[in-house]
């Protein structure tokens, strides 16, 4: 770097600084890109609840958004806890009640899953289709649909980071 030739050395140093600057920018941009690449995974718009109607078939384009969006899936997991789904589909669930294993064995399409949650529980005395708002049903369906691909700690959120949140109607207060 420290060239003895006075004029050329000065010029070289200048060039070196410019080059270093350019490289620095490229590196910075690359790091920024890496850091923000995952941000779109949580994209959502704040506004009136969407969607307001159930899926209209297996090819409903809205399902793709809900499945692939981290926020919607997490929110589904939260309502799964809130509405006490864990009382039957909890950690000790076996057979078809173990939703993650069931989903792994035999993946169910999004619209069918939605229908099972909304209408399939009527025979157990729960009309979730009428009791849970549509947007939340979409989110819960997305969560159950993605269960098989979620890491255990995200699958067991009600025991971990959601431990203090209300779980069903027997909840008696936050964890202290």
């Amino acid at each position, binding site marked *: 770097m420290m060239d003895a030739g006075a004029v050329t050395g000065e010029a070289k140093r200048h060039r070196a600084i410019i080059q270093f600057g350019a490289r620095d920018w490229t590196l910075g941009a690359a790091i920024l890109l890496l850091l923000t690449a995952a941000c779109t995974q949580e994209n959502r718009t*704040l*506004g*009136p609840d969407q969607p*307001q109607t159930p899926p209209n078939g297996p090819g409903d384009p809205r399902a793709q958004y809900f499945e692939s969006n981290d926020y919607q899936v997490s929110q589904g997991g939260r309502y799964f806890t809130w509405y006490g789904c864990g009382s039957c589909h909890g950690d000790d669930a076996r057979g078809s009640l173990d939703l993650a294993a069931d989903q792994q064995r035999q993946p169910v399409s999004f619209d069918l899953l939605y229908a099972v949650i909304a209408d399939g529980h009527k025979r157990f005395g729960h009309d979730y289709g009428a009791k849970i708002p549509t947007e939340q049903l979409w989110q819960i369906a997305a969560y159950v649909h993605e269960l098989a691909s979620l890491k255990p700690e995200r699958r067991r959120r009600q025991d971990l980071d959601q*431990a203090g949140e209300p779980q069903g109607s027997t909840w008696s*207060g*936050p964890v*202290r």
Partner: protein
Amino acid sequence: MKRRAALAATLALGGCSGVQTPLAPVADQAHSQYDLLLLMLWVCGIIYLLVLGFLVLGLWRARGGRAAAVAPLLEPADKRLGRLFAVWVAIIVVGLLLLAGGSFLVERSLAAAQADETLRVRVTAHQYWWRVAYRDPAGGGWVETANELHLPVGRTARIELGSADVIHSFWVPNISGKMDVIPGRANAIDLTPRRLGWFRGQCAEFCGPQHAHMAFDVKVETPAAFAAWLAVEARPARAPGNAEQARGMQVVTQGQCAMCHTVRGTAAAGRNGPDLTHIGSRRSIAAGALSMTRAHLQGWIANPQAIKPGTMMPAVTLSPADADAAAAYLESLK
């Protein structure tokens, strides 16, 4: 012109007697912290004036560039300078000791359990509202309400804080300092209000998009009024008074509202949202976002995301007649 002056005066005075300011303390805790603030103001103010005074003195003595021509007035080894330096250090040490001592004494008294704690209140922070629970005076259970804290004047209440989700902070500036509300941790704060009135509390730790709309009302009332209020709160919800309210009751207690809300005495027993048993008697809805009116209730039910974007309250699709009935019923729940 006169009106404008009056308005300016009102606004200026309003800053001193607001319902959410630490400069108008109404409780022992806020008073001791206010005194600490005054102490800091005096100590720092005096030091500040001294520094500025010496600066002016130096500039004055150096005026006209004469100082540059003559030798320094004092050599570093000069005894007078050494003495002045010692005095200056002493002033700083005394000031810092005053601040540290005052702070220690105030903090110790705030943290100590008060002998006359007579009221336990459980406050649970949720994204974006406050669950408030009192001991039922008649039985052993807890009586829940939301976003409204009632305190009897002259008695110390111990507020037990818990969080259901993220970190929040409990702050009623007129009554006490802040106390963080941390998930999985039990924090407590004592409040001893000395003056009657309505005050405003606010979440003071960023907790999500609707952090700014996570407020609550605090009412300091006479012990008799407090006991009467608690007795009413402990009662189950009143029965609907007319056909419209009866329809509203059906909508609220058998529809989507009941998944998250409780109306004691009815089928609605959800635990995730605020208790609605006596919502009609509260001063505001949606954690201070709107005042309590039938129109606001209707707007809140129809499109909560437009009023508090990011709130956990979902829009509930109801026919106009049902929405009207639900609002009428909720408003009647005094």
